Protein backbone atom coordinates (compact mmCIF):
# COMPACT_ATOMS: atom_id res chain seq x y z
CA UNK A 1 0.00 0.00 0.00
CA UNK A 2 1.40 3.45 -0.92
CA UNK A 3 0.75 6.29 1.47
CA UNK A 4 0.95 10.02 1.13
CA UNK A 5 3.00 11.99 3.68
CA UNK A 6 1.15 12.35 7.04
CA UNK A 7 -1.31 9.63 6.08
CA UNK A 8 -1.50 6.58 8.27
CA UNK A 9 -2.34 3.05 7.26
CA UNK A 10 -4.09 2.69 10.60
CA UNK A 11 -7.19 4.83 10.51
CA UNK A 12 -8.72 4.97 13.96
CA UNK A 13 -11.73 7.08 13.06
CA UNK A 14 -12.74 4.74 10.23
CA UNK A 15 -12.61 1.87 12.67
CA UNK A 16 -14.82 3.78 15.10
CA UNK A 17 -17.34 4.38 12.31
CA UNK A 18 -17.32 0.71 11.40
CA UNK A 19 -18.49 0.00 14.93
CA UNK A 20 -20.92 2.94 14.96
CA UNK A 21 -18.95 4.44 17.82
CA UNK A 22 -18.99 8.16 18.51
CA UNK A 23 -16.51 8.97 21.21
CA UNK A 24 -17.50 12.34 22.50
CA UNK A 25 -16.33 13.87 25.77
CA UNK A 26 -18.52 12.89 28.73
CA UNK A 27 -17.09 14.87 31.64
CA UNK A 28 -13.90 16.45 32.86
CA UNK A 29 -13.62 14.42 36.00
CA UNK A 30 -9.84 14.62 36.05
CA UNK A 31 -7.38 17.37 35.33
CA UNK A 32 -4.09 15.75 34.40
CA UNK A 33 -1.05 17.98 34.60
CA UNK A 34 2.38 17.22 33.25
CA UNK A 35 4.88 18.92 35.54
CA UNK A 36 7.73 18.51 33.06
CA UNK A 37 10.03 16.09 31.30
CA UNK A 38 12.79 15.99 33.86
CA UNK A 39 13.28 12.48 35.25
CA UNK A 40 15.93 10.56 37.15
CA UNK A 41 15.39 7.61 34.78
CA UNK A 42 15.44 7.07 31.01
CA UNK A 43 13.12 4.08 30.52
CA UNK A 44 13.07 2.33 27.15
CA UNK A 45 9.32 2.55 26.68
CA UNK A 46 8.89 6.14 27.99
CA UNK A 47 6.23 7.88 25.93
CA UNK A 48 7.46 11.24 27.25
CA UNK A 49 11.11 10.56 26.31
CA UNK A 50 11.90 11.95 29.75
CA UNK A 51 15.34 12.01 31.34
CA UNK A 52 17.85 13.90 33.53
CA UNK A 53 18.81 16.13 30.58
CA UNK A 54 15.34 17.68 30.18
CA UNK A 55 15.44 20.20 33.02
CA UNK A 56 14.45 23.03 30.67
CA UNK A 57 10.91 21.72 30.27
CA UNK A 58 9.30 22.32 33.67
CA UNK A 59 5.86 23.71 34.53
CA UNK A 60 6.16 27.28 35.88
CA UNK A 61 4.56 28.65 39.04
CA UNK A 62 2.14 30.72 36.91
CA UNK A 63 0.94 27.68 35.00
CA UNK A 64 0.61 25.68 38.22
CA UNK A 65 -1.52 28.48 39.65
CA UNK A 66 -3.70 28.55 36.52
CA UNK A 67 -4.33 24.83 36.99
CA UNK A 68 -5.26 25.40 40.62
CA UNK A 69 -7.60 28.22 39.60
CA UNK A 70 -9.43 25.78 37.31
CA UNK A 71 -9.93 23.39 40.22
CA UNK A 72 -11.19 26.23 42.39
CA UNK A 73 -13.62 27.33 39.68
CA UNK A 74 -15.01 23.94 38.67
CA UNK A 75 -15.89 21.67 41.61
CA UNK A 76 -17.02 18.99 39.12
CA UNK A 77 -13.34 18.38 38.34
CA UNK A 78 -12.83 16.06 41.27
CA UNK A 79 -9.36 14.66 40.62
CA UNK A 80 -5.92 16.04 39.97
CA UNK A 81 -3.58 13.56 38.29
CA UNK A 82 0.05 14.70 38.43
CA UNK A 83 2.47 13.24 35.88
CA UNK A 84 5.86 13.98 34.34
CA UNK A 85 8.73 12.99 33.88
CA UNK A 86 9.13 12.57 37.58
CA UNK A 87 6.72 15.31 38.75
CA UNK A 88 8.28 15.39 42.22
CA UNK A 89 11.39 16.99 40.70
CA UNK A 90 9.48 20.15 39.80
CA UNK A 91 10.13 22.87 42.40
CA UNK A 92 6.39 23.64 42.61
CA UNK A 93 5.37 20.05 43.33
CA UNK A 94 4.68 20.60 47.04
CA UNK A 95 2.70 23.73 46.31
CA UNK A 96 0.43 22.09 43.76
CA UNK A 97 -0.22 19.03 45.92
CA UNK A 98 -0.94 20.96 49.11
CA UNK A 99 -3.17 23.48 47.33
CA UNK A 100 -5.19 20.85 45.46
CA UNK A 101 -5.59 18.77 48.63
CA UNK A 102 -6.65 21.99 50.38
CA UNK A 103 -9.35 22.43 47.74
CA UNK A 104 -10.63 18.98 48.69
CA UNK A 105 -9.51 17.29 45.49
CA UNK A 106 -8.44 13.70 45.17
CA UNK A 107 -4.78 13.96 44.16
CA UNK A 108 -2.88 11.21 42.35
CA UNK A 109 0.82 11.18 41.58
CA UNK A 110 2.55 9.06 38.94
CA UNK A 111 5.54 8.14 41.03
CA UNK A 112 8.42 6.17 39.56
CA UNK A 113 9.57 4.80 42.97
CA UNK A 114 13.32 5.34 42.45
CA UNK A 115 12.99 9.14 42.55
CA UNK A 116 12.80 8.84 46.35
CA UNK A 117 16.24 7.23 46.47
CA UNK A 118 18.14 9.17 43.79
CA UNK A 119 19.46 12.67 44.36
CA UNK A 120 17.65 15.41 42.40
CA UNK A 121 19.32 15.34 38.95
CA UNK A 122 19.77 19.13 38.90
CA UNK A 123 20.10 20.31 42.50
CA UNK A 124 21.50 17.13 44.04
CA UNK A 125 18.92 17.50 46.86
CA UNK A 126 17.82 14.32 48.65
CA UNK A 127 14.25 13.29 47.78
CA UNK A 128 13.80 11.02 50.80
CA UNK A 129 11.03 13.28 52.15
CA UNK A 130 8.59 12.00 49.55
CA UNK A 131 6.90 9.04 51.32
CA UNK A 132 6.09 11.16 54.41
CA UNK A 133 4.86 14.01 52.22
CA UNK A 134 2.63 11.67 50.19
CA UNK A 135 1.12 10.23 53.37
CA UNK A 136 0.53 13.64 54.98
CA UNK A 137 -1.42 14.78 51.93
CA UNK A 138 -3.11 11.40 51.40
CA UNK A 139 -1.98 11.23 47.79
CA UNK A 140 -2.91 8.19 45.74
CA UNK A 141 0.41 6.82 44.52
CA UNK A 142 0.51 5.09 41.12
CA UNK A 143 3.83 3.43 40.34
CA UNK A 144 5.27 1.43 37.47
CA UNK A 145 6.72 -1.93 38.29
CA UNK A 146 7.09 -3.89 35.04
CA UNK A 147 7.46 -7.27 36.76
CA UNK A 148 7.89 -8.94 40.10
CA UNK A 149 11.50 -9.89 39.35
CA UNK A 150 14.48 -7.98 38.09
CA UNK A 151 14.86 -9.14 34.48
CA UNK A 152 11.99 -7.24 32.84
CA UNK A 153 12.17 -4.31 35.24
CA UNK A 154 15.88 -3.64 34.76
CA UNK A 155 15.69 -4.17 31.00
CA UNK A 156 12.98 -1.59 30.67
CA UNK A 157 13.95 0.90 33.35
CA UNK A 158 17.72 0.48 33.73
CA UNK A 159 20.02 -1.82 35.66
CA UNK A 160 19.41 -1.90 39.41
CA UNK A 161 15.94 -0.36 39.10
CA UNK A 162 14.15 -3.41 40.43
CA UNK A 163 16.09 -3.56 43.71
CA UNK A 164 15.65 0.18 44.25
CA UNK A 165 11.94 -0.01 43.40
CA UNK A 166 11.55 -2.74 46.01
CA UNK A 167 13.34 -0.57 48.56
CA UNK A 168 11.07 2.35 47.71
CA UNK A 169 7.87 0.25 48.01
CA UNK A 170 9.15 -0.81 51.43
CA UNK A 171 9.37 2.85 52.47
CA UNK A 172 5.81 3.42 51.22
CA UNK A 173 4.51 0.32 53.03
CA UNK A 174 6.16 1.60 56.22
CA UNK A 175 4.08 4.78 55.91
CA UNK A 176 0.91 2.69 55.49
CA UNK A 177 0.72 2.73 51.69
CA UNK A 178 -0.73 -0.48 50.26
CA UNK A 179 -1.66 -1.68 53.74
CA UNK A 180 -5.28 -2.68 54.25
CA UNK A 181 -7.51 -0.17 56.06
CA UNK A 182 -4.80 2.49 56.17
CA UNK A 183 -6.66 4.59 53.60
CA UNK A 184 -3.38 5.14 51.74
CA UNK A 185 -3.50 3.71 48.24
CA UNK A 186 -0.52 2.35 46.33
CA UNK A 187 -1.34 1.09 42.84
CA UNK A 188 1.18 -0.65 40.64
CA UNK A 189 1.27 -0.46 36.88
CA UNK A 190 2.43 -3.33 34.72
CA UNK A 191 3.33 -2.69 31.12
CA UNK A 192 4.88 -5.28 28.82
CA UNK A 193 8.65 -5.22 28.51
CA UNK A 194 8.50 -5.53 24.74
CA UNK A 195 6.31 -5.51 21.65
CA UNK A 196 3.57 -7.74 22.99
CA UNK A 197 0.13 -7.07 24.44
CA UNK A 198 -0.75 -7.67 28.08
CA UNK A 199 -3.50 -10.13 29.03
CA UNK A 200 -5.03 -11.31 32.24
CA UNK A 201 -4.83 -8.43 34.72
CA UNK A 202 -6.44 -10.54 37.41
CA UNK A 203 -3.94 -13.39 37.18
CA UNK A 204 -1.01 -10.99 37.04
CA UNK A 205 -2.27 -9.26 40.14
CA UNK A 206 -2.33 -12.58 41.99
CA UNK A 207 1.21 -13.35 40.80
CA UNK A 208 2.48 -9.90 41.83
CA UNK A 209 0.79 -10.17 45.25
CA UNK A 210 2.18 -13.61 45.96
CA UNK A 211 5.71 -12.93 44.76
CA UNK A 212 6.10 -9.48 46.34
CA UNK A 213 4.73 -10.75 49.65
CA UNK A 214 6.68 -14.04 49.72
CA UNK A 215 9.99 -12.63 48.55
CA UNK A 216 10.00 -9.16 50.05
CA UNK A 217 7.05 -8.92 52.47
CA UNK A 218 5.54 -6.08 50.41
CA UNK A 219 1.93 -5.23 49.58
CA UNK A 220 -0.01 -2.90 47.29
CA UNK A 221 -3.65 -2.18 46.41
CA UNK A 222 -4.42 -2.51 42.70
CA UNK A 223 -2.46 -3.63 39.67
CA UNK A 224 -3.19 -1.97 36.34
CA UNK A 225 -2.01 -3.52 33.10
CA UNK A 226 -1.40 -1.02 30.34
CA UNK A 227 -0.40 -1.35 26.70
CA UNK A 228 2.73 0.33 25.40
CA UNK A 229 1.80 3.26 23.17
CA UNK A 230 3.48 3.31 19.76
CA UNK A 231 4.90 6.81 20.20
CA UNK A 232 8.23 8.43 21.12
CA UNK A 233 10.88 6.15 22.63
CA UNK A 234 8.85 2.95 22.34
CA UNK A 235 8.09 3.67 18.69
CA UNK A 236 11.77 4.35 18.01
CA UNK A 237 12.60 0.99 19.57
CA UNK A 238 10.00 -0.72 17.33
CA UNK A 239 11.35 1.03 14.25
CA UNK A 240 14.93 0.05 15.06
CA UNK A 241 13.77 -3.58 15.13
CA UNK A 242 11.66 -3.16 12.00
CA UNK A 243 8.68 -4.14 14.16
CA UNK A 244 6.46 -1.04 14.03
CA UNK A 245 4.02 -2.39 11.43
CA UNK A 246 3.78 -5.75 13.16
CA UNK A 247 3.02 -4.04 16.49
CA UNK A 248 0.40 -1.77 14.91
CA UNK A 249 -1.25 -4.80 13.30
CA UNK A 250 -1.43 -6.43 16.71
CA UNK A 251 -3.07 -3.34 18.19
CA UNK A 252 -5.51 -2.98 15.31
CA UNK A 253 -6.30 -6.72 15.37
CA UNK A 254 -7.07 -6.50 19.08
CA UNK A 255 -9.46 -3.53 18.69
CA UNK A 256 -12.16 -3.88 21.31
CA UNK A 257 -15.24 -1.64 20.89
CA UNK A 258 -16.04 -2.05 24.56
CA UNK A 259 -12.62 -0.73 25.59
CA UNK A 260 -13.06 2.12 23.09
CA UNK A 261 -16.02 3.43 25.08
CA UNK A 262 -13.79 3.74 28.14
CA UNK A 263 -10.86 5.70 26.69
CA UNK A 264 -9.65 8.24 29.22
CA UNK A 265 -9.86 11.30 26.94
CA UNK A 266 -13.65 11.20 27.38
CA UNK A 267 -13.34 12.14 31.04
CA UNK A 268 -10.09 14.03 31.33
CA UNK A 269 -8.12 16.99 30.06
CA UNK A 270 -4.36 17.07 29.98
CA UNK A 271 -2.19 20.14 30.56
CA UNK A 272 1.33 20.24 29.14
CA UNK A 273 4.27 21.64 31.13
CA UNK A 274 3.94 24.85 29.11
CA UNK A 275 0.22 25.23 29.89
CA UNK A 276 -1.19 24.06 26.57
CA UNK A 277 -4.24 21.82 26.65
CA UNK A 278 -4.56 18.37 25.11
CA UNK A 279 -7.10 15.53 25.02
CA UNK A 280 -4.67 13.24 26.84
CA UNK A 281 -1.03 12.76 27.76
CA UNK A 282 -0.36 10.81 24.55
CA UNK A 283 -1.73 13.53 22.29
CA UNK A 284 0.37 15.92 24.29
CA UNK A 285 3.51 13.93 23.47
CA UNK A 286 2.54 13.89 19.81
CA UNK A 287 1.90 17.65 19.84
CA UNK A 288 -1.78 17.16 18.89
CA UNK A 289 -3.46 20.09 20.63
CA UNK A 290 -7.02 20.11 21.88
CA UNK A 291 -9.42 21.22 19.14
CA UNK A 292 -11.72 23.94 20.39
CA UNK A 293 -10.90 26.50 17.73
CA UNK A 294 -7.64 28.41 18.09
CA UNK A 295 -4.75 27.91 20.49
CA UNK A 296 -5.80 27.00 24.00
CA UNK A 297 -3.85 27.68 27.14
CA UNK A 298 -4.75 26.68 30.66
CA UNK A 299 -5.10 30.39 31.45
CA UNK A 300 -8.28 30.66 29.35
CA UNK A 301 -9.83 27.31 30.15
CA UNK A 302 -13.57 27.09 29.55
CA UNK A 303 -15.24 23.89 30.67
CA UNK A 304 -18.22 24.23 28.37
CA UNK A 305 -16.04 24.60 25.29
CA UNK A 306 -13.93 21.68 26.39
CA UNK A 307 -16.98 19.46 26.78
CA UNK A 308 -18.27 20.48 23.34
CA UNK A 309 -15.02 19.66 21.56
CA UNK A 310 -14.21 16.85 19.15
CA UNK A 311 -11.44 14.67 20.49
CA UNK A 312 -8.39 14.50 18.20
CA UNK A 313 -7.73 10.86 17.39
CA UNK A 314 -4.76 9.28 15.59
CA UNK A 315 -3.20 5.90 14.87
CA UNK A 316 -1.70 5.74 18.39
CA UNK A 317 -5.27 5.57 19.78
CA UNK A 318 -5.31 1.88 18.81
CA UNK A 319 -3.06 1.48 21.87
CA UNK A 320 -5.99 2.51 24.09
CA UNK A 321 -8.50 0.13 22.52
CA UNK A 322 -6.46 -3.06 22.18
CA UNK A 323 -7.69 -6.10 24.07
CA UNK A 324 -9.10 -5.31 27.44
CA UNK A 325 -8.26 -1.63 27.08
CA UNK A 326 -5.70 0.56 28.67
CA UNK A 327 -5.53 4.35 28.48
CA UNK A 328 -3.37 4.46 31.62
CA UNK A 329 -6.36 3.48 33.71
CA UNK A 330 -5.65 -0.20 33.17
CA UNK A 331 -7.67 -3.12 31.94
CA UNK A 332 -11.42 -2.75 31.95
CA UNK A 333 -13.06 -5.95 33.04
Amino acid at each position, binding site marked *: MRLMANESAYDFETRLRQHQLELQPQTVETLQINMGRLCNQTCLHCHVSAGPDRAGEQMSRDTVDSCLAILARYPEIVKLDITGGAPELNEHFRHVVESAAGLGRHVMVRHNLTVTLDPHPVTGESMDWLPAFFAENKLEVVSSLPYWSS*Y*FTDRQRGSGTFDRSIESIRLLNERGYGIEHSGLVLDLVYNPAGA*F*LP*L*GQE*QLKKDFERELMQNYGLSFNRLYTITNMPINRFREMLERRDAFEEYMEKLVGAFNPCAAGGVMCRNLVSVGWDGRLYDCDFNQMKGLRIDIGGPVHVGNFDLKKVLDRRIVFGEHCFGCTAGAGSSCTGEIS
Partner: protein
Amino acid sequence: MMNYFESDDLKKFPAIGKFRGELARKFFEYYGKVMDEDGALTRREKALIALAVAHAQKCPYCIDAYTEACLSNGADPEQMSEAVHVAATMMAGITLVHNVQMLNKLDKLGV
Protein backbone atom coordinates in the same frame (compact mmCIF):
# COMPACT_ATOMS: atom_id res chain seq x y z
CA MET B 1 11.63 -18.89 -3.61
CA MET B 2 8.96 -20.72 -1.69
CA ASN B 3 9.82 -22.08 1.74
CA TYR B 4 8.10 -24.50 4.04
CA PHE B 5 6.99 -22.87 7.30
CA GLU B 6 6.58 -19.23 6.30
CA SER B 7 5.82 -17.40 9.56
CA ASP B 8 3.06 -15.45 7.82
CA ASP B 9 1.27 -18.73 7.08
CA LEU B 10 0.22 -18.99 10.71
CA LYS B 11 -2.36 -16.28 9.98
CA LYS B 12 -3.93 -18.68 7.49
CA PHE B 13 -4.65 -21.27 10.15
CA PRO B 14 -8.43 -20.60 10.00
CA ALA B 15 -8.29 -21.62 6.30
CA ILE B 16 -8.18 -25.25 7.41
CA GLY B 17 -11.96 -24.84 7.61
CA LYS B 18 -12.24 -24.30 3.85
CA PHE B 19 -13.64 -27.81 3.49
CA ARG B 20 -15.73 -29.54 6.12
CA GLY B 21 -15.83 -26.23 8.02
CA GLU B 22 -17.98 -27.64 10.81
CA LEU B 23 -15.15 -29.93 11.91
CA ALA B 24 -12.66 -27.04 11.95
CA ARG B 25 -15.17 -24.93 13.88
CA LYS B 26 -15.48 -27.61 16.53
CA PHE B 27 -11.70 -27.79 16.80
CA PHE B 28 -11.28 -24.00 17.17
CA GLU B 29 -14.07 -23.85 19.71
CA TYR B 30 -12.43 -26.61 21.74
CA TYR B 31 -9.03 -24.98 21.34
CA GLY B 32 -10.33 -21.60 22.49
CA LYS B 33 -12.10 -23.13 25.47
CA VAL B 34 -8.96 -24.93 26.61
CA MET B 35 -6.38 -22.22 25.94
CA ASP B 36 -8.09 -18.86 26.36
CA GLU B 37 -9.70 -19.29 29.75
CA ASP B 38 -8.34 -19.68 33.25
CA GLY B 39 -9.48 -23.02 34.64
CA ALA B 40 -7.84 -25.43 37.06
CA LEU B 41 -4.72 -24.11 35.34
CA THR B 42 -4.13 -20.44 34.63
CA ARG B 43 -3.67 -19.22 31.06
CA ARG B 44 -0.03 -18.57 31.92
CA GLU B 45 0.50 -22.19 32.99
CA LYS B 46 -1.28 -23.47 29.88
CA ALA B 47 0.81 -21.23 27.63
CA LEU B 48 3.99 -22.60 29.25
CA ILE B 49 2.83 -26.18 28.66
CA ALA B 50 1.98 -25.29 25.06
CA LEU B 51 5.44 -23.77 24.59
CA ALA B 52 7.05 -26.96 25.88
CA VAL B 53 4.92 -29.12 23.57
CA ALA B 54 5.72 -26.82 20.64
CA HIS B 55 9.43 -27.47 21.21
CA ALA B 56 8.99 -31.20 21.69
CA GLN B 57 6.97 -31.35 18.46
CA LYS B 58 9.35 -28.90 16.78
CA CYS B 59 6.59 -26.68 15.43
CA PRO B 60 7.96 -23.24 14.44
CA TYR B 61 4.47 -21.74 14.19
CA CYS B 62 3.63 -22.76 17.73
CA ILE B 63 7.02 -21.68 19.09
CA ASP B 64 6.42 -18.18 17.67
CA ALA B 65 2.83 -18.04 18.85
CA TYR B 66 3.44 -19.37 22.35
CA THR B 67 6.59 -17.37 22.99
CA GLU B 68 4.38 -14.33 22.64
CA ALA B 69 1.40 -15.89 24.43
CA CYS B 70 3.64 -16.75 27.41
CA LEU B 71 4.84 -13.13 27.64
CA SER B 72 1.34 -11.72 27.23
CA ASN B 73 0.09 -13.94 30.01
CA GLY B 74 2.78 -12.79 32.41
CA ALA B 75 5.51 -15.42 32.09
CA ASP B 76 9.14 -14.31 31.96
CA PRO B 77 12.04 -15.76 29.93
CA GLU B 78 13.27 -17.78 32.92
CA GLN B 79 9.95 -19.61 33.29
CA MET B 80 9.78 -20.09 29.53
CA SER B 81 13.31 -21.51 29.34
CA GLU B 82 12.55 -23.85 32.22
CA ALA B 83 9.45 -25.09 30.36
CA VAL B 84 11.66 -25.89 27.35
CA HIS B 85 14.05 -27.78 29.63
CA VAL B 86 11.09 -29.80 30.90
CA ALA B 87 10.31 -30.69 27.27
CA ALA B 88 13.97 -31.56 26.64
CA THR B 89 14.32 -33.77 29.71
CA MET B 90 11.06 -35.53 28.87
CA MET B 91 12.28 -36.17 25.33
CA ALA B 92 15.61 -37.49 26.65
CA GLY B 93 13.87 -39.57 29.29
CA ILE B 94 11.46 -41.02 26.76
CA THR B 95 14.37 -41.99 24.50
CA LEU B 96 16.33 -43.49 27.34
CA VAL B 97 13.49 -45.41 28.95
CA HIS B 98 13.08 -47.24 25.63
CA ASN B 99 16.52 -48.59 26.32
CA VAL B 100 14.82 -51.01 28.71
CA GLN B 101 13.22 -52.58 25.63
CA MET B 102 16.67 -53.03 24.11
CA LEU B 103 17.97 -54.57 27.31
CA ASN B 104 14.97 -56.95 27.42
CA LYS B 105 15.69 -58.02 23.86
CA LEU B 106 19.40 -58.47 24.55
CA ASP B 107 18.45 -60.64 27.49
CA LYS B 108 16.12 -62.73 25.38
CA LEU B 109 18.83 -63.19 22.79
CA GLY B 110 21.15 -64.37 25.50
CA VAL B 111 23.59 -61.52 24.91
